[in-house]
């Protein structure tokens, strides 16, 4: 079991997440893709923590999880309110804030 696999997996997850954020329109899916990217990063942190034999990475992973949890609370609330007013959860429809 080499750490490389974890890193490759993490990179793959991050890429999937990033592409998902860019190409999907549904706000919920975009949101889930963001979570995917965060978790890919978490995986990387934990892997390096394991490689280096320190706890730093794991601690930061906790922080990330907390931030992600907070983000979900606020993000979902925003998405809910947008959906209620506009009857749509598409991120492309919410484009009023522009030039």
């Amino acid at each position, binding site marked *: 079991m080499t750490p490389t696999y974890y890193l490759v997996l993490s990179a793959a997850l991050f890429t999937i997440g*990033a592409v998902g*954020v*860019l*190409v999907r*329109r549904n706000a919920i899916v*975009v949101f889930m893709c963001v979570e995917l990217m965060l978790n890919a990063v978490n995986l990387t942190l934990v892997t390096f923590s394991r490689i280096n034999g320190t706890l730093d990475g794991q601690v930061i992973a906790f922080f990330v999880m907390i931030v992600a949890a907070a983000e979900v609370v606020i993000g979902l609330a925003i998405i809910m309110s947008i959906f209620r007013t506009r009857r749509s959860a598409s*991120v*492309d429809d*919410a*484009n*009023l*804030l*522009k*030039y």
Partner: protein
Amino acid sequence: MTTAHGIQSAAWLLVALPVLSAAVLLLAGKRADKWAHWLGALVPVVLFVYAAILFFSIKSESNREISLHLYSWIPVAGFQVDAGMLLDPLSMVFVLLITGVGSLIHIYAVGYMAGDEGRRRFFGYFNLFIAAMLLLVLGNSFLSLYVGWEGVGLASYLLIGFYQNRNSAATAAKKAFIANRVGDVGLSIAIMVMFAYFGTTSFDGVFAHMGGASSGVAAALGFMLLLGACGKSGQFPLQTWLPDAMEGPTPVSALIHAATMVTAGVYLIARSAPIFDQSQAARTAVVVVGAITLLYGCICGCGQDDLKRVLAYSTVSQIGYMFLAVGLGPGVYAIGIMHLIGHGFFKAALFLSAGSVMHAMNDRIDMRRFGGLARVMPITYGVFLCGFLAIIGFPLATGFWTKDKIIESALDKGGTSGWILGIVALLGAGLTAFYMTRALVMTFHGKRRWEDDVHPHEAPRVMTVPMIVLGVLSLVGGYLLIFGGGLQHWLTPSVGSSIEEGAHTVSPVVLTILTLVVVALGVGGAWVAFGMRPVPATQPVVVSPITTAARKNLYADATNEAVLERPGLWLTRALVYLDNKGVDGVVNGLAAAFGGGSGRLRRLQTGFVRSYALSMMAGAFAVIAVLLAVRFS
């Protein structure tokens, strides 16, 4: 030089009093309307009485140059200017002329301006004019002279443009002011040169230094003073403002032409005699300017149909005579001053009677619409006739004594230049006779040519009395001046003694007869042309080129327009264009570039969250790429 004492130490009142009354008249407002003109007319009379007392007080002194120190005006370390007055024969002559003729014109103006609602303002400006002119001739330094000089310019501007709602008057006032300004620059440069080289501007200081001054400095001073004198006295090439100054009320023209303003240039040159003594070039320039202007004024005067303009051109040419005289050098100064005083009398008489004619003719001034006024206005006619006889040099009238002397002095200069100047002066005398006869005949003789709605009448007594006084003075004044060489003797301390009766180029008797013949030719020519034939009521269109040129002031205005005004206009237009397109172009272009660029950049803010995300990721990749490139290079 003695210090003023007794009654002489109150000489500052000569300037203070008219300034005070001008301030009262201008500030008092409508409540002063009832008595303002009487106050305005009283002040110069009081001044004249005081000046006469002062005159006799000075006459009794052994040293007739009296200095009156007033206060320290500009006390700067190396530069001290004291405000003071110089009471000497030259300034006293001017003070008497200004206050005497000025009083008569003031009294006349009471009647002339009776119907004008701005009479109070008019008298305020009038007193200001007198004050400035008195300061000009009484100051004891070039700097205080300059203050009076500018004051005269200001007062003339206000008075020429007195009918401020009339466009032509406003333009004439501006023209006078600008032409004067050109001359004033010359005077101010001269004062700066004095300060730079001599460190003083007082008359004694400067004249004491003149002996040691280089010829260059003397010539520079002479030419700059001449420029100043040309501007104020309406001499070539700055003469065009003077005829236009006729836009003001007639008493103003009389005051400008007879007592104040135009005589200032002659005064300046006579006062600066020690400077001109040092520079032959400057002296020659004065003579040339005088001779050119003399002929110019005569020729233009022959072509005018406006009575006041004829008189204005006659002033231009008479002042030319004075310049000729004061330019001829020591000994002839007194003759120039004598002609100046005589001119003050007869020109005032002529202008006041012209004003009386205008008054009677509903302000019409075209001589072609007059004719036959002698019967309707006998007093005015008589006064005009006196002035006429004086100006053409009729035997025993003023001009006969003073003008003939100038012609004689010009011939006595000797050499070719003497002959040229003498002949020019003689020719001028003939032309003067021609245009004055023309004016006299067209106005007062022949058939009546005025319209039916005009009812000419003699002026009220308040106008006729000063006119009669001036008319009498024009006849006998010259004799009084020349009697026993009185004026020449009197002026000796100021301008040097006159030449001894020595060798003459042409004997005086022959010259007098010659002059009279030339004058008679002029009178006869005009009589044949205008007296024996009916005068057309409108200006003939087909005339000789000379008449056309004379009507157009010998193209002086056209030349000024072509040489100065047009290029100035072009330059201004080019600068405006450069400013609009160049300077403003850069500023506006920069603003437009930023505005346009920002407008395009703004379009990047699409509102699509995903495109933002893409650009953020592109940025992140770019940062990583740079980091890697740095790390592994």
